[in-house]
């Protein structure tokens, strides 16, 4: 599924919740609860995303040119938020991820439901995902 299709799917799902903040939080938490379990060894400080209100760990792996992510959080809502992003980004190429325009959060007015702090954290998650798949800079001659 493309990045755009995944986002449009999320937008459609959230719109059925009619702006009910409790239902939206329950939806986010439910998605997070089915994230594949992150190996304990990955839950280290080096893998923490900076700028998140809660602890959120993120690791990327690549198979051929497709990237997969492991993620976890110590709070259910942050776990749900990162799981939304993984739904969009998992299985895409690094190039597609770096160039992706993430719009589902604005379309769904996510900040209204999760608050400013978590919204800033959500932006930090997107930034980190793009950063982590970026190829290293070539050595200077």
């Amino acid at each position, binding site marked *: 599924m493309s990045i755009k299709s995944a986002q449009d799917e999320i937008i459609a799902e959230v719109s059925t919740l009619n702006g009910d*903040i*409790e239902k939206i*939080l*329950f939806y986010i*938490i*439910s998605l*997070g*609860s089915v994230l594949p379990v992150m190996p304990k060894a990955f839950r280290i400080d080096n893998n923490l995303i900076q700028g998140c*209100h*809660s602890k959120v760990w993120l690791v990327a792996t690549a198979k051929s040119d497709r990237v997969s992510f492991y993620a976890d959080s*110590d*709070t*259910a*809502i*942050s*776990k749900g938020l990162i799981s939304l992003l993984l739904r969009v980004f998992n299985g895409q190429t690094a190039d597609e991820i770096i160039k992706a325009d993430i719009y589902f959060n604005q379309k769904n007015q996510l900040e209204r439901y*999760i*608050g400013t702090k*978590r919204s800033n954290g959500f932006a930090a998650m997107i930034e980190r995902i793009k950063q982590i798949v970026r190829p290293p800079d070539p050595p200077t001659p």
Partner: protein
Amino acid sequence: MNYLTTISTLDPALIRKEFPVLQQKVNGRDLVYLDNAATTQKPMRVIRALTDYYNGYNANIHRGIHTLAEKATHAFEQTRETVRSFIHAQLVEEIVFVRGVTEAVNLVAATYGLAFVEEGDEIIISNLEHHSNIVPWQWVCEKKKAKLLVIPLNDVGEIDMNKFKKLLSDRTKIVAVNHASNSLGTINPVKEITRLAHSKGAVALIDGAQAGAHIAIDVADIDCDFYCLSAHKMYGPTGVGILYGRKSILEKMPPYQGGGEMIREVTYKKTTYNDLPYKFEAGTPNIADVIAFRGAMEFILELGKENITAHERKLLSYASRKVGALPLVTLIGRASEKVGVLSFVIENIHPFDIGQMLDARGIAVRTGHHCTQPLMACLGINGTVRASFAVYNTEAEVDALVESLKRIIKFLNSSHVN
């Protein structure tokens, strides 16, 4: 306005009418405001006092001789006298206006602390303290090579008085503790703590942030050397607090900030300082909010402190019973004497998640470490959910909290999260 239904029972329904902010919906539900330890809401008379001041007599105080300046000065000093009476201090010059308890403690640390604490001396605080009553003392100890000692707690979150007695020594210079804990609600035996501090020649500073609105304060009876209050935690505006200081000690202390108002005469060769309390009130103060603060104290006095204490104790008891009976809930802080603060954790559910999901149902609580990180570390937790009560809170609001917690526990357990 008579807020009492009987001689001694408060009428929250009547009281709530005084608080416009409470008459709103949050996320489609009636606001249930249970974050009073963070800040209390303001009655109409306080809000009106602010607009009356700016509409009617805004002027700088103490220096002008025109009518508006006289009126503003008089109103400002009236608040000072009200504070003196409210806390049963002897002298009005013992009341210094600051921005809040944080500034009050910093003032004492930066002046008394740096002037009178020497290398090898000791400053004692408790494990219950807010960061504002820890960090300034850490700075004094670093600068003066003194030691910061911490009184441990017992199992229910009370200061261990036997261990405190063992910490006291001839090197103890300052004992600084809170009157009531913002995280656990524990009310500390500040009179006895002060007596013990004095027995070793130390001064006692009491952080009264969580006491001002909730329990009796009598600095003459406590006999403390410093007492600190924040107006915004006692139905007053933000940006105002008071430092009570014993006159003989304030006189020995060097000034805190330099500038206008705190001087008597300035030349390039030498500057002399103003009398108490103005020596410690440099610059233009927060005039409007000091004036409005008087209304907050009058509101409390009209209700009667003993009635307030009884109302909040009843709410706390009700909430402790109901919340404590929920599955997976552990109450944190079970002292025999508490202000209306209920901290708890729920197994496998992060406090941030609980707070956010309560907010979805219009319920405002505080989550996290509550600016008491060392206390949380000692308790082995990363934070709590804290509901804190005030005069306008009701048992129906506690019921709303309990119902919402039941939903959260049921949902998050069935989701098998974390």
